[in-house]
């Protein structure tokens, strides 16, 4: 029974095994990036970046069809361009970074939708927005695993300055010149993970697997390292159960994965031992 429900789909179907590997790679790479996005209070920035990569991916698609390489390079270029431009604008004008980023990503999103819808069909747009985790080819799998490896190595290197940049940015600037470098390295990781994630989950859902498990993890952990472990675990469990359930009930996989992550989030909001509603109420009663 359990075998039929959970294991059989992966054993019998190659596309399910590919989806499993791809989504686990995303869980290991994107969830830690999401933890730092959350701790830098930039959760919505991930959302903005996800929209910003769309025109790049669309141009890649127009040039060479559903090619992983072309769409990835285009997405990375568009994402980095928007990140850098909004950084430059906020440093040289009166606009704050969130305002300039919002302006750039909305323009970018509009451009992306125009390009996709004029050059392709609605099915293509659907693919780009929601991904196709059940149709990952070799190139996409290699991309996902490469980005995850690169992410984990980079995070290991910038872990200390990035933590400082989150907890006390002024102090980091006073003791070292690494602040800007750390910031841009981290933005690059965000873009890379969104671009690789959208192969599987689409631009809209890739940011979900980044932020939702991280938000849930915050309520279970009191250190960055344990937050990362919780977030990756929540993401991985969401992916696996999302794949299994969508296999049996023919739901759209990407959004289902995020819905399950959302269930973890809601449960954490209620039961999370560090700042969850019930634990807060207990503290309130005690004091």
């Amino acid at each position, binding site marked *: 029974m359990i075998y039929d429900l959970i294991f059989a789909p992966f054993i019998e179907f190659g596309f399910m095994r590919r989806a499993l590997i791809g989504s686990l790679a995303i869980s290991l790479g994107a969830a830690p990036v999401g933890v730092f996005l959350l*701790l830098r*209070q930039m959760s919505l920035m991930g959302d903005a970046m996800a929209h910003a990569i769309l025109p790049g991916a669309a141009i890649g698609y127009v040039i060479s069809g559903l090619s992983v390489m072309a769409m990835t390079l285009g997405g990375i270029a568009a994402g980095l361009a928007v990140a850098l431009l909004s950084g430059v604008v906020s*440093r040289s004008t009166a606009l704050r970074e969130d305002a300039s980023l919002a302006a750039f990503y909305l323009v970018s999103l509009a451009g992306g939708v125009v390009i996709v819808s004029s050059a392709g069909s609605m099915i293509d747009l659907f693919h780009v927005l929601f991904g196709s985790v059940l149709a990952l080819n070799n190139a996409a799998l290699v991309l996902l695993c490469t980005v995850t490896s690169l992410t984990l190595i980079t995070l290991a*290197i*910038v872990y*200390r*300055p990035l*933590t*400082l940049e*989150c*907890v*006390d*940015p*002024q*102090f980091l*600037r*006073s*003791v*070292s010149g*690494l602040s800007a470098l750390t910031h841009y390295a981290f933005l690059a990781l965000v873009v890379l993970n969104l671009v690789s994630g959208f192969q599987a989950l689409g631009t809209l859902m890739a940011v979900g697997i980044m932020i939702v498990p991280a938000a849930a993890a*915050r309520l279970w*952990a*009191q*250190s*960055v390292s344990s*937050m990362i472990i919780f977030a990756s675990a929540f993401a991985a469990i969401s992916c696996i159960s999302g794949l299994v359930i969508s296999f049996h009930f023919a739901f759209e996989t990407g959004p289902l994965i995020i819905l399950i992550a959302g269930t973890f989030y809601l449960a954490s909001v209620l039961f999370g031992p*560090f700042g969850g509603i019930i634990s807060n109420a207990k503290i309130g009663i005690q004091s």
Partner: protein
Amino acid sequence: MAGVSLRNVTLGYDTVAAIRDLDADVSDGSLTAIVGPNGAGKSTLLRGISGELLPLSGHITRHAPNPRDIAYLPQQSSVDRSFPITVKDFVSMGLWHQVGPLGGIGSRYAHDINRAIEAVGLRGLEGRSIGALSGGQMQRVMFARLLLQDAKLVLLDEPFTAIDATTTADLLNIVRGWHWEGRTVLAVLHDHDLVRSHFPKTLMVARDLVAHGDTAKVLTSANLLKARRMCEACDRPPEICEHKFAGAA
């Protein structure tokens, strides 16, 4: 040597000067209070000395040119208190100049870290989240980090504001310890009684230099009146400086 020389220094934001043509020599190893009315430019002066703010004109010479020799505690700290980090890990950041971005902290510095936490009276709270600390305890944590920075020049911006008397007394002991060890300490302070009893030197500013020297000679009612008068001028819009601000914001 970790004294500071200010030559004709104008400091400000954009084109507005908060400190104008200031000349002063803070001698090496001195313990100096910076006092003055609200809006006199005290914090701006400290930011200038720390190197965070570049002067619009004039020269600031620190006889400790290496950034690692300067420790600066800003008034408005940028610390995100909701960040999940323990007291011990937070204090350990003071070791940045020793360990850099990649060096291990491990057992080599465990003794130093424990000693710093003990010195500020937070023994037993090493594992607590910074979000769970009171305001006074958090300021003790900031001082523990300053202790680990082991800097020759220590700059404190209103370190005792909104902090209970016990904590102030404990932290003052640490400041005195720095003075005794020969470090140069500059602190922006409001409490004149505290300055009189603990700070040998005082630098009084009101956009401009009012007086600088032994506290007893500087902190007089005549000087305070003069500073207030000068700052009535401060209440008017500050004059526009011709030099365009060149530093990073």
